[in-house]
């Protein structure tokens, strides 16, 4: 009887353990598959040409494999998104944690979270068919597909990621430190900028990094509204292509398994993976740091 129970307990623990370990298996498969498929790509295309070429035309009769246009496209949409999301997200976080009455905070927060729940394809629709036509009224040079409009929409979409993590970090600053500032006659604004933000710095940095990683990896908004044109440009009014939207473009066509074109999406994938991996790990350690500080 005792033996039977022990066996059952052991069996259950083994199953649970395998489930937890499956996350490791997922990461390993990502790395293996990305490396395996892009190995075939880099065997044919020298890595120098890949990293320094300014033309990306893998599907042309005379293909070119310079990744820089995808880099500038990603940089462009990401930086537009961040210049919207970081200030708005931080200001909203300060407002919610230090200014807003309890009731306002409890209503605004779930609504902000909803922003992250809307399917990105709907945001793409909105960027292409609502925002771009409006922007064109003010900027006549703006082409129908451009980096600006999806960048702005992505920025608003990312606000909740930035604001909720920053707000948590600011609320984690102990009350007695905040009181120290108020007791000196400081206003809420002075307390927020001179005491709370420095104290919550690593948490706010982590929030920014989550935002950056989201913006780099966002796919559908740019795929729909930025035009899928690999332009080597920093002009936000022109159509561009990002790493993500390139993968979408190739996947939409009928590219046979094992061809060089097929492998290009894994090469783009591995570049994307390492960029976001870098930011994710940085963000993870910054967040771990706030936890140990207080």
């Amino acid at each position, binding site marked *: 009887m005792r033996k039977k129970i022990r066996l059952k307990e052991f069996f259950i623990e083994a199953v649970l353990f395998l489930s937890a370990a499956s996350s490791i298996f997922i990461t390993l498969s990502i790395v293996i598959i990305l490396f395996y498929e892009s190995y075939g790509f880099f065997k044919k295309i020298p890595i120098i040409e890949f990293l320094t070429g300014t033309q990306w035309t893998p599907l042309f009769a005379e293909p070119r494999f310079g990744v820089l246009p995808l880099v500038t496209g990603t940089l462009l949409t990401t930086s537009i998104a961040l210049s919207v999301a970081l200030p708005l997200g931080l200001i909203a976080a300060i407002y919610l944690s230090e200014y807003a009455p309890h009731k306002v905070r409890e209503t605004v927060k779930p609504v902000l979270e909803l922003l992250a729940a809307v399917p990105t394809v709907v945001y793409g629709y909105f960027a292409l068919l609502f925002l771009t036509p409006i922007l064109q009224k003010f900027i006549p040079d703006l082409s129908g597909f451009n980096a600006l409009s999806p960048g702005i929409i992505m920025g608003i979409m990312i606000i909740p990621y930035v604001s909720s993590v920053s707000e948590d970090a600011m609320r984690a600053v102990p009350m007695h430190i905040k009181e120290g*500032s108020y007791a000196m*006659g400081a206003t809420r604004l002075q307390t927020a900028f001179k005491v709370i933000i420095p104290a919550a710095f690593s948490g706010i940095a982590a929030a920014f990094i989550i935002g950056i990683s989201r913006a780099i990896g966002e796919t559908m908004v740019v795929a729909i509204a930025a035009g899928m044109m690999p332009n080597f440009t920093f002009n936000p009014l022109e159509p561009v292509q990002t790493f993500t939207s390139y993968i979408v473009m190739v996947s939409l066509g009928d590219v046979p398994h094992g061809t060089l074109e097929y492998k290009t999406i894994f090469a783009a994938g591995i570049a994307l993976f390492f960029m976001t991996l870098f930011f994710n790990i940085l963000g993870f350690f910054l967040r771990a740091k706030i936890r140990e500080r207080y």
Partner: protein
Amino acid sequence: MSEMSIAISEKLKSEVKNLNFYYGAVQALKNISLPIERRKVTALIGPSGCGKTTFLRCFNRMHDLYPGNRYEGEIILYPDNINIISTEIDPIEIRMQISMVFQKPNPFPKSIYENVAYGLRVRGINNKQILNERVEKSLRGAALWEEVKDRLHDLAFELSGGQQQRLCIARALATDPRILLFDEPTSALDPTATSKIEELIIELKNEVTIIIVTHNMQQAARVSDSTAFMYLGEIIEFDRTEKIFTAPTKKLTEEYITGRFG
């Protein structure tokens, strides 16, 4: 008590008259009246939960930070004759004149220098020379200058607990407060650091009026000139410190200082 109030009437810095205080619907302070002498140390003692910290925090309107708190009555600040707790007076204006040192050292995540300069910067003073002078003067005033003068730009967290608390005193002194409030300033410190802070308080009363909350009766006896014993939100007895500790008139006071409860 009446003979004493006549004797000190011209030397008052502040006077509390019929103060009531409410946390929402709960009344935390009941009908408190108390004179605060100029350049003297007034101690507030009593068992935990008696309202002494609540009372102290009325003086610089810390309760205004949280919704639902309400004051009734007057705390008059002399010589201007303004009522500190009047709703017409901005709490920030009060806090600029009445500084506070907290129970737990709470330096800001900034350098030692910037911690002391904080109150001045909040007041819009950014002149380097003035800041340097005032920072040095305050650190000397808090008996910390010799220990930190070579590392003013290190992070304040690197100081020991006692040093951090003296830094907080320096921070409070930098703005030339008219009253300095101490909320159990040594409860988080070891005996050596505690005696340093006590010496400092005795020295500081030459320049500034001090109110100190303490749960340590020996401390009250050592540093204060007059002592108020509080119980359940009321002042039970107020008198010269030596009188309170040697010949209290109320039974409750006697029981408390002889350690029979609290």
